[in-house]
């Protein structure tokens, strides 16, 4: 097997759920539990799931904004989850992130040109003219112009700000960009523009993307491979075509049935009952047990293995035959 660009193994992250005061019992919830996935060079990996399933936490751990409790994140073979801030800094250049709300991710006190040039400056570009040339180049690449160089972030529209967020990630030639819901806050007509742009940029610059979204249509459009997350863990993973042609996990099926699509008048859909529970540290059994229409006795006691059901198609469910 060739070396993966990014390989995540048994990643786990917990957050305090209840502090319990000085004497009470402290409880922690697992945001991400036993998560493993790989991203290849030039691939777009889509991570889809409902809010609170741990997809954003996963993205933040990859770019080092959150430290993992256990497990490893191998980037080009090096474990970045255990690196100190100092060791990690040279790799920052290659691992970038686009936020859902780019406006709040931009320093409100600086002009756009200053923001972008400063990023270049800290990565060692000392020549002023070169910095400015590169900034204008990147602005053009994301569909902004020289005129925006002197603007403040709050003077731009929502779509332009998102383009700027992408420009900030692109400017230092990253290899992997984590896109955390980059189009969720936008209007559909603007969303389409940004999606097209991301897809073209990815092809042109041979980027790898980890695309995090709750919108199944968006994920399907942009991803090569998709992982479906539920309650901190992957329940299904395969390439996009297979997933939509043949979803295996009951959660994936109900998720697809719930998409409001103007052209699929679903008829009588099966509304999923209940809501996502909280995963405590002593959680047992299948993550989807509480809402699954096919749940059996074994699902309650034993967590299903995340196994390859068909070549290249993994799922975690007791009810799927090999």
């Amino acid at each position: 097997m060739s070396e993966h660009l990014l390989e995540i193994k048994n990643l786990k992250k917990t957050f305090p759920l209840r502090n319990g005061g000085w004497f009470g019992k402290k409880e922690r919830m697992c945001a991400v539990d036993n998560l493993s996935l790989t991203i290849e060079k030039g691939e777009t990996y889509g991570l889809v799931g409902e809010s609170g399933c741990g997809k954003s936490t996963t993205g933040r751990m990859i770019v080092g904004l959150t430290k993992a409790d256990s497990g490893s994140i191998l980037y080009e073979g090096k474990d970045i989850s255990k690196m100190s801030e100092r060791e990690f800094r040279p790799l920052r250049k290659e691992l970038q992130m686009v936020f859902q709300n780019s406006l709040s991710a931009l320093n409100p006190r600086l002009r756009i040109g200053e923001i972008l040039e400063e990023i270049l400056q800290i990565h060692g570009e000392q020549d002023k003219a070169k910095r400015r040339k590169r900034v204008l180049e990147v602005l053009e690449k994301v569909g902004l112009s020289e005129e925006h160089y002197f603007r403040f972030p709050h003077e731009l529209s929502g779509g332009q700000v998102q383009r700027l967020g992408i420009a900030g990630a692109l400017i230092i030639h990253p290899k992997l960009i984590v896109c955390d819901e980059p189009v969720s806050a936008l209007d559909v007509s603007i969303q389409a523009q940004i999606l097209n742009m991301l897809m073209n940029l990815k092809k042109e610059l041979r980027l790898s993307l980890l695309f995090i979204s709750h919108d199944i249509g968006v994920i399907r459009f942009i991803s090569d491979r998709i992982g479906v997350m539920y309650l901190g863990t992957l329940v299904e993973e395969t390439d996009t075509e297979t997933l939509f042609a043949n979803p295996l996990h009951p959660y994936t099926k109900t998720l697809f049935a719930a998409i409001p699509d103007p052209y699929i008048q679903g008829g009588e859909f099966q509304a999923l009952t209940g809501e996502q529970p909280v995963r405590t540290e002593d959680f047992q059994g299948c993550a989807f047990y509480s809402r699954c229409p096919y749940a059996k006795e074994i699902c309650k006691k034993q967590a299903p293995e995340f196994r390859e059901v068909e070549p290249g198609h993994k799922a975690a469910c007791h009810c799927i035959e090999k």
Partner: protein
Amino acid sequence: MLIRRKSISAASEAIFREQRTLKKEKLLANPALIIGFVGFVLIVLLAVFVPIFNSTDPNAMEVTKRLQPPGDGYLFGTDEFGRDLFVRVMYGARVSLWVGGCVAIFSCVLGTIIGIYASYFKVLDQILMRICDGLIAIPGILLAIALIAALGTSSWNVILALTIVYTPSVARTVRVSALVIKEQAYVEAAKVQGFSNFRILWRMILPGVISPLTVQASFIFAQAIISEASLSFLGAGIPAPAASWGNMLESSKMVFSRAPWTMICPGAAVILCVLSLNLLGDGLRDYLDPKVKGGKKKA
């Protein structure tokens, strides 16, 4: 500034003009700032220039002209020793501005250092903030009197005492806004882009702290003037017979019913000075907030 004016193309010139117009509009939509600023500058100019051009000694007594009403050679009248009140109010302004300004600057510098350190190091935070809590728990004026009683009365000791009184509140403001800014998405984004902690501190947190600090500084300035006047009034401030608003109010209390101007003039000076500083602070708060446009908050 990374961007120099000389390299501006024609298109960007228009943007700068537009941004300047917006700034101007924002300023004009903020009468508190303008009135406060003009009032404060006026007081400073009077305090600086009147004693230069008017050579009357503020402490020169003329026993024949005791308790003259305002007008007729004495703009504000005279006090019970026949001293020119107008000149004394102006000299008093010097003292007040000097004390207030020093206290504002010292407590802001000290408070910023403490606040920033506290926001960065958890252990230090606990220690520093508990000390601040302790200091804040004691009523300010009482603390100042106690300190002066220990140190002795002099203008430097007044400044020192008031600085100790006001530093904790600055430290708290700075610490809170630094903590808020640290949680902002743009600081996280900067981390992802590889900014070092030191750079984040200087380029993002400090500029973010500056604007609430300026506002706080103008309020402290005003409060310090009141405190100084109160201390002098109580005899724990600037030693008499030096002209200070507090001293003048104190000496007027015996003759107030016969010569109300002896109290009204320094009292009005305190009120006007504090009012314009407070207006200035209120105005600055709106003006320095990048999210407020043209006097109104963006929806």
